[in-house]
């Protein structure tokens, strides 16, 4: 018998059916899920069954590397957490989550932190992923639902602008939804997506914001602004227009390297299209000015009258599997379930009521992801960390420093399915179930809540994350539900009335309707595929223009570090690679870390294809095999971040609003390893 569920990887959450017969597990694409309608899957999806069968699983708890029973492991953890809390206070315990966890897990993790541990020190790796787009969307629209329209709407677009997004590599089946549109791709690299583009703009790394301002300047100068829309549905345009006087296209050309003529073509195509979309990805967002960059693109979309109009819009392409739901239900430092703000008294009262505690007992906002990791083991910082669904030794910026901070902890507890680089540093490793072995909900990039169903039995000795969380809570004196359906019922109540309202969503409805779009406040409510059509959820119902200014990268190139480094993903791997580097056909496709560099740069550095190359920044060094390609600018090198190395180099300069680190640009030098 086959079970309908979803792919374990990215935010597209392609539907797949899993059939398990003995040890044989086969995957077939579902055709009822719009994200991958037509039965599409990429190589990661097709090969996902190997995650279940490749023999790399952790199957029993480890205490200091030695197998122990679950009771022993959990008792030890609870006892140590209690002792550290007694000695240093509740904030001595940190919790770190992930954007791949189900909504139920993200929710229960937040509750564990706020109720059972009483700590404010919780954040998650989505901070490294979606925080800039989220902050900019909230400031413009009053709500962050990544794509505020179904993915299938894109089929009706004439023009789609992709700013720093490379879906042909990162979520291939998504590209099928773009087939009818002219693509304008903004990327310093000629990526797989840029190769499909009608127009490819190649700004220098760290200058997307200037480019967006230049595009908007042209839209205004050429009278392409949708005046009735701006007058009727937005506020703040005048101030933005004044700020644009400093960003005339010739100046922007000098900063970005994008010819004025190409900017003009881009703006005109967007403005003259009947239906158009502006979509951003991590390339634009993972900067110390990522929020402002997204705001600049949203301003452009607003000036052209796109958001909240049927058939057009702005959206961000969420990255991780539950990158949307993971940012809604309380594993973020400043947040409570339902996308509520933790410093909002009404939000605290509602959630405290659901949790049966007093509002004043809930902690306030804690540190953001990088700041939290950077504080570990320091005076005043956390002494213990519980880590779920994340691998910061590979994925955090300035990762060698973060590995040192993690080593300085008195207690590190890691829940994972395999022995990740971070799990290898743990005092206690707890083996947990993975996608096909568990049930729960995932909210994909459209804001559509989907049902992950258990299709195979987990290996003996493995427990679900919910059981682990509830087991710890119980030892700390709290009774938590640990069954996914029950946790979801509680999540529905906790989210009720919040921006991300799941109150009307049930597992049955999701199954019957192939997903339900939030907000969905009651069981009779149809869900909200397009939340901005009538008005925006701001106090006056209008979207807000936000004036922003470009500034250079936090670390620019100089004589000592004369080349830009930018990082990203490749099709065959996912995030820190903990899953995909353990799948034979994926490692066959891309077996090792590499450094992509332009022939001119390679020439100058006497590097040939296949040479081992060392890349060094002010923070550390990483190595990779040289791949020589004119798809990259000659002042820039690219490294995929799926291996330890790339993030030893990246710059932890943080966005002042979103606390997003500057993953996408830093200064390095490059040399051949003799």
């Amino acid at each position: 018998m086959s079970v309908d569920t979803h792919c374990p990887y990215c935010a597209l959450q392609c539907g797949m059916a899993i059939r398990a017969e003995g040890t044989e597990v086969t995957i077939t694409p579902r055709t009822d899920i719009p994200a991958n309608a037509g039965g599409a899957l990429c190589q990661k999806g097709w090969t996902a069954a190997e995650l279940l069968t490749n023999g790399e699983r952790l199957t029993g708890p480890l205490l200091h590397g030695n197998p122990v029973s679950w009771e022993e492991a959990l008792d030890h953890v609870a006892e140590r957490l209690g002792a550290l809390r007694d000695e240093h206070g509740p904030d001595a315990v940190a919790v770190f989550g992930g954007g791949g966890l189900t909504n139920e897990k993200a929710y229960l993790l937040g509750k564990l932190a706020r109720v059972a541990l009483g700590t404010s020190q919780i954040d998650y790796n989505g901070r490294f992923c979606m925080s800039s787009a989220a902050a900019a969307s909230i400031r413009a629209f009053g709500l962050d639902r990544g794509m505020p329209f179904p993915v299938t709407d894109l089929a009706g677009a004439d023009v789609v602008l992709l700013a720093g997004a490379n879906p042909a590599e990162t979520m291939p089946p998504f590209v099928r939804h773009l087939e009818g549109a002219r693509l304008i791709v903004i990327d310093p690299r000629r990526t797989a997506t840029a190769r499909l583009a009608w127009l490819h703009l190649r700004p220098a790394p760290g200058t997307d914001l200037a480019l967006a301002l230049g595009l908007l300047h042209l839209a205004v100068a050429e009278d392409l602004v949708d005046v009735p829309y701006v007058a009727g549905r937005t506020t703040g345009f005048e101030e933005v227009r004044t700020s644009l006087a400093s960003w005339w296209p010739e100046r922007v050309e000098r900063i970005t390297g994008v010819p004025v003529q190409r900017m003009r073509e881009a703006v005109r195509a967007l403005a003259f299209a009947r239906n158009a979309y502006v979509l951003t990805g991590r390339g634009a967002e993972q900067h110390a000015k990522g929020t402002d960059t997204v705001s600049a693109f949203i301003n452009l979309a607003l000036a052209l009258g796109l958001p909240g109009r049927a058939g057009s819009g702005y959206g961000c392409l969420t990255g991780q599997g539950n990158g949307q739901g993971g940012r809604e239900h309380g594993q973020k430092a400043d947040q409570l379930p339902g996308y509520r703000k933790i410093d909002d008294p009404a939000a605290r009262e509602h959630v405290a009521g659901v949790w049966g505690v007093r509002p004043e007992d809930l902690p306030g906002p804690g540190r953001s992801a990088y700041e939290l990791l950077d504080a570990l083991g320091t005076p005043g910082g956390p002494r213990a960390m519980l880590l779920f669904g994340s691998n910061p030794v590979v994925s955090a910026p300035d990762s060698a420093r973060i590995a040192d901070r993690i080593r300085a902890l008195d207690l590190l507890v890691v829940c994972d399915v395999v022995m990740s680089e971070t799990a290898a540093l743990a005092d206690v490793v707890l083996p947990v179930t993975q996608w096909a072995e568990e049930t729960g909900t995932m909210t994909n990039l459209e804001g559509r809540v989907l049902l992950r169903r258990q299709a195979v039995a987990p290996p003996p000795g493995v427990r679900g994350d919910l059981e682990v969380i509830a087991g710890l809570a119980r030892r700390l004196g709290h009774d938590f539900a640990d069954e996914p359906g029950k946790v979801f019922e509680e999540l529905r109540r906790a989210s009720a009335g919040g921006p991300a309202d799941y109150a009307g969503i049930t597992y049955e409805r999701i199954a019957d309707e192939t997903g339900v779009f939030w907000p969905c406040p009651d069981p009779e409510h149809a869900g909200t595929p397009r939340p901005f059509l009538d008005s925006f959820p701001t106090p006056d119902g209008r979207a807000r223009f936000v004036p922003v200014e470009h500034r250079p990268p936090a670390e620019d190139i100089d004589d000592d570090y004369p080349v830009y480094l930018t990082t990203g993903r490749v099709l065959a791997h996912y995030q820190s690679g903990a899953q995909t580097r353990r799948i034979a056909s994926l490692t066959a496709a891309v077996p090792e870390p590499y450094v992509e560099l332009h022939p001119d740069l390679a020439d100058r550095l006497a590097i040939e294809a296949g040479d081992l190359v060392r890349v060094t920044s002010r923070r550390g060094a990483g190595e990779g095999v040289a791949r020589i390609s004119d798809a990259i600018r000659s002042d820039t090198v690219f490294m995929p971040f799926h291996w330890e190395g790339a993030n030893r180099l990246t710059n932890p300069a943080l966005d002042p609003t979103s606390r997003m680190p500057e993953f996408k640009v830093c200064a390095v030098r490059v040399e051949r390893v003799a």
Partner: protein
Amino acid sequence: MRLVVVGNGMAGSRLVGEVRARDPRVSITVFGAEHGRPYNRVLLSNVLAGKARPEQLGLHDLSWYAANRVEAALGSEVAWIDREARAVHTADGRREPYDLLVLATGSEAIVPPIPGVERAIPFRTLDDCDRILKAAEHSRRAVVVGGGLLGIEAARGLAGRGLPVTLLHLAGHLMERQLDAEAGLVLGETLAGLGVETRTGVLAESVEETGVRLAGGELVEGDLVVLACGVRPLTALAAEAGLEVRRGVVVDDELRTDDPSIFAIGECAEHDGTVYGLVAPAWEQASVAADVITGGKTRYRGSRLVTRLKASSVELAAMGETQLTDEHAEVVRFSHRAQGTYRKLVIRDDRLVGAILLGDSDAVGTLTQLFDRGGPVPGDRAGLLFPGLSAAPVADSPVLMPDAAKVCQCNNVTKGQIRACWEAGARDVAGVAAATRATTGCGTCRDAVAGIVGWLCEQEGVSA
């Protein structure tokens, strides 16, 4: 600290913004001779060409000053500086003491002292622009005197409004400070195609009712005469205060004059023997001065000049030392006058020290950044002038594609695997997809797979 800024143009207004962004406390007073809010002078030619409206040029809204606690005395001209008492005095009798003073007085249009010149309108300010546009409405023909950047932009703008234009220029070719003779020639030809007739090497002797009289007696007809004869730094205030003034007010690397409490920036300042007439250097100076004023350690080392003509259907960028010849530098040149294309690179010590790009080209971005950064020039010079020229050809024909070529990126399928699959019996895309998963990801390789399968089937037909 009390900071007083004289001048609220591009440099002064920029400095005020930069200082405020760095220091919320310092008290700032800015005097502007013009009544309105500061505006972006660079965009004036767009207004003239009808590509921007005057209200799109404003740099700060008047509400900005209140919100940022900057006192703006607009329409108030500073008459003299009392250096001893450290105070400025305005023409209308106001006295404003300062701890630090910044002169950003800019420059004024040069009006040649020829008979009848009062009939002509200089092209310098928003008011000038307004006057020109009003006059253009009932003019039949225009003459623009001065074939520098601004004159060309004005001429192109007026021609774009349907007015026949004659452009008069004293030097032997257009934009002689930025272009070599051939580029000037090609530019003139491009302009001719857009309704601007160019006359170089001519001297305007007088402005008459019906046009401009040249030395030699010829009358160039036109009932609207626009002057774009260059600018002169406004330095009188500084000179009368006893500050060192050559062509501009002399400043050091901190943008300080010889009085350490007085700075000068923008078009009135002279740094290292150079007075800059473009906005980019003025803004770089404003940024350095703001940093120094707020206690920073930045120094100004001069600016690299990139000139970008803003005239529709004329793409021109010129940077650095464009006039150097093969004796002094490595020069790479491509000229195609029939197409209005001229491209030139000037390279010294493996660095790009100058370039001209006339005609639409994607190279402009790369070259500007190479020039700005001073990075080494790649060995393939032609590739710099013609981006994409050296790119490896894409073998998309199934015949030419090697077996190792990846056809389906999403599922990592090579041509060789598709061939093997075909040899095992698959005869259509669906068969190949079922066996290899090719085409099941993003779907963009469908045509390529169909092409390979079709070609293999054809081969079979041929050999059978």
